[in-house]
């Protein structure tokens, strides 16, 4: 049996993390959180339309995995994509301007919240159809293997997506052809209003890979260091030509599924408990303070710096003009 249970140690027990590293994760996670809060606000003002899915609560997942990636690695995800874009280094201005549907957005305003891409950062979207990104991610990995390089593709999907049939078709071929693909299940416990308990009697998603011979493990997604450690291991397996690998990352979304979700399917207390006890940003913050890696003032300065970046992105997104009407007719054929 290829699959085996994870042994992710608590973050505090990992001594070899430098102050710079910790500070960088803090900043990256905080950027996502503040950016998403701002996006929620702009949505409320009518500047962002349609669907808008926030990533608040799940920040440690992408930040931890990006810490395990190298230049050339690819990533692909669902509509809940703002965090992934910021974490891989895409420009907050371009992301926010896409949210407002403006010329300065990553897709010139034509994609919107769910559909953004960056060739430069090897970010392949931004997909609106639940689980469609999973075979696509396996295909990206196929291309790298074909070309003979050692790049890896991070293919992100949700616990809800994990029940789609195409996931298992992709698993089978990915293992058959040893594709360098890390399948990342962001298990935030809900697919819209459906809890995992109400959608499957096989709740250990990573173990399903065993049926195809794929290795994997479960990871604490509220602990950025645990995510990073698991990511490094997965990436190593894939680079060695022994992929794919499955990471089931246990996480939690604080906000509703999208902006119009009243979230009546869970209690306010459940959300508050997560926020109070498991918040990934607070965890790093307290590590920085208790380890004397930073002072309250240092952190305040970081908060301020992030707030400025986010405010600037909102300004940019408001100022950027709407796309020219000619854009309606471009980019349909190559």
């Amino acid at each position, binding site marked *: 049996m290829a699959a085996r249970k994870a042994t992710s140690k608590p973050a505090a027990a990992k001594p070899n993390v430098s102050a710079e590293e910790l500070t960088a994760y803090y900043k990256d996670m905080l950027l996502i959180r503040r950016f998403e809060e701002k996006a929620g606000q702009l949505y*409320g003002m009518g500047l962002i339309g349609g669907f808008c899915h926030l990533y608040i609560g799940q920040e440690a997942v992408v930040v931890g995995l990006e810490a395990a990636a190298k230049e050339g690695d690819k990533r692909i995800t669902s509509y809940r994509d703002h965090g992934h874009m910021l974490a891989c280094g895409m420009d907050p201005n371009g992301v926010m301007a896409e949210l407002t549907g403006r010329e300065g957005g990553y897709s010139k305003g034509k994609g919107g919240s*769910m559909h953004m891409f960056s060739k430069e950062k090897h970010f392949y979207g931004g997909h609106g159809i639940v689980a469609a990104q999973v075979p696509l991610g396996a295909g990206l990995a196929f291309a790298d293997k074909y070309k003979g390089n050692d790049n890896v593709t991070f293919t992100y999907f949700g616990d809800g997506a994990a029940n789609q049939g195409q996931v298992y078709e992709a698993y089978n071929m990915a293992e058959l052809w040893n594709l360098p693909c890390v399948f990342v299940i962001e298990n935030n416990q809900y697919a819209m209003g459906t809890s995992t308990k109400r959608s499957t009697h096989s709740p250990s998603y990573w173990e399903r890979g065993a049926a195809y011979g794929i290795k994997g493990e479960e990871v604490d997604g509220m602990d950025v260091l645990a995510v990073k450690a698991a990511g490094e291991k997965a990436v190593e397996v894939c680079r060695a030509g022994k992929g794919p690998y499955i990471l089931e990352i246990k996480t939690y979304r604080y906000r509703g599924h999208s902006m*119009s979700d009243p979230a009546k399917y869970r209690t306010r207390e459940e959300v508050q408990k997560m926020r109070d006890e498991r918040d990934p940003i607070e965890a790093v913050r307290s590590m920085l303070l208790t380890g004397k890696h930073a002072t309250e003032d240092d952190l305040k300065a970081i908060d301020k710096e992030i707030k400025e970046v986010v405010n600037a992105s909102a300004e940019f997104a408001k100022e950027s003009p709407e796309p020219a*009407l000619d854009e309606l007719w471009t980019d*349909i054929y190559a």
Partner: protein
Amino acid sequence: MATEILMPALSPTMEEGTLAKWLVKEGDTVSSGDIMAEIETDKATMEFEAVDEGIIGKILIAEGTEGVKVNTAIAVLLEEGEDASAVPTSAPVEAPAPSESPVEVAGGEIPWPLKPAEVAIAATLEPDWPEGTAMKQQTVREALRDGMAEEMRRDDTVFLMGEEVAEYQGAYKISQGMLDEFGDKRVIDTPITEHGFAGIGVGAAFGGLRPIVEFMTFNFAMQAIDHIINSAAKTLYMSGGQMGAPMVFRGPNGAAARVGAQHSQDYAAWYMQVPGLKVVMPYSASDAKGLMKTAIRDDNPVIFLENEILYGKTFDVPDLEDYTVPFGKARIWREGTDVTIVSFGIGMTYALEAADKLAEDGISAEVIDLRTLRPMDTASIINSVMKTNRCVTVEEGWPQGSVGSYISSVIMQEAFDYLDAPVITCTGKDVPMPYAANLEKHALITTDEVVAAVKQVTYR
């Protein structure tokens, strides 16, 4: 600095809402994530969270106020140390009076079907219920639910399955209350597995049940297209008439508002092409209900194409215990002599608006709502074109292989000598749906385009 807290938009289609309840009072300290109020949108009651930290300086809109427009200031937030004198002295914003008109239709009112007295000839002018029937006001959303619920009471082999249909009460609240009434044996939440549950639905239909399969939107039915076409539509034929799939596949179809290319496609022309399927696309609430009941009773797989924007629109619906609308019978919404405008579903909004505008210019348009695309009431189209000698079709889908192009071929084959101008097919633009507000508006069909097309075929 004191900042105003604004009434938020909490759904893609929300323009105003009710400030149901304040959970904070003046003087309270709030921090990001705290729930400040409960707001009722067009779809649900939502919690409104604070984004910034501060102290509630003043509450400007009292709880219980209805019809609060998005972006109205509802409270003032102070920073620590500021006192209430920092509150702008402007008087509290008056709550706008609740709007009287049930649903706004851009550009004018939709005329209710011509009264029987005005009915001239065609059977298609008659309503589908007895003369003198009392009417009540209902949204399309309510009409669809009532149609399903009535049939479920009548026939216990009918059941509803789909994503979020039960406990969540429907992603678009179509199945509101149905879990309570029918229980979880008959109102069934599925995982996100369209191909799987569509296949299970078809199998259940083979096995003698009458499933209603809801797709959260028809965009996701593409995951299940193999079962819809290869399993549901073709089995009766392949089995020499032994077994088929008496079932309904339903859900919202077409563009909503700014949900981008993968969530905004009109599939009318796709499904209309398939023998073995019946295809329904209602516009009004009475048709939504009457056609839903017919669809559930039909022994064939029926594709029932709804529309998110129409869900909230209110129409007169006959106050009858049981009425159905037959398939294959169009409805004439407006009689005219100069041109025939043929449409269906949300396209009717543009068709009727255009007819109003044209009337101002002295052009009399006859407006036909097809209601079902397969079977299609081409006889009524031909009848009308023989009178008006001109035809314009209106739909949101793409131009190549559109519903309109089929209609124009039928007219050419059956009424060629009656035509005084080529048929014009008004459609959505030949592009994936853009997200940007200005581009989306241009990608969709507009009333002005319909007016221009009519002027072209009438040589004005």
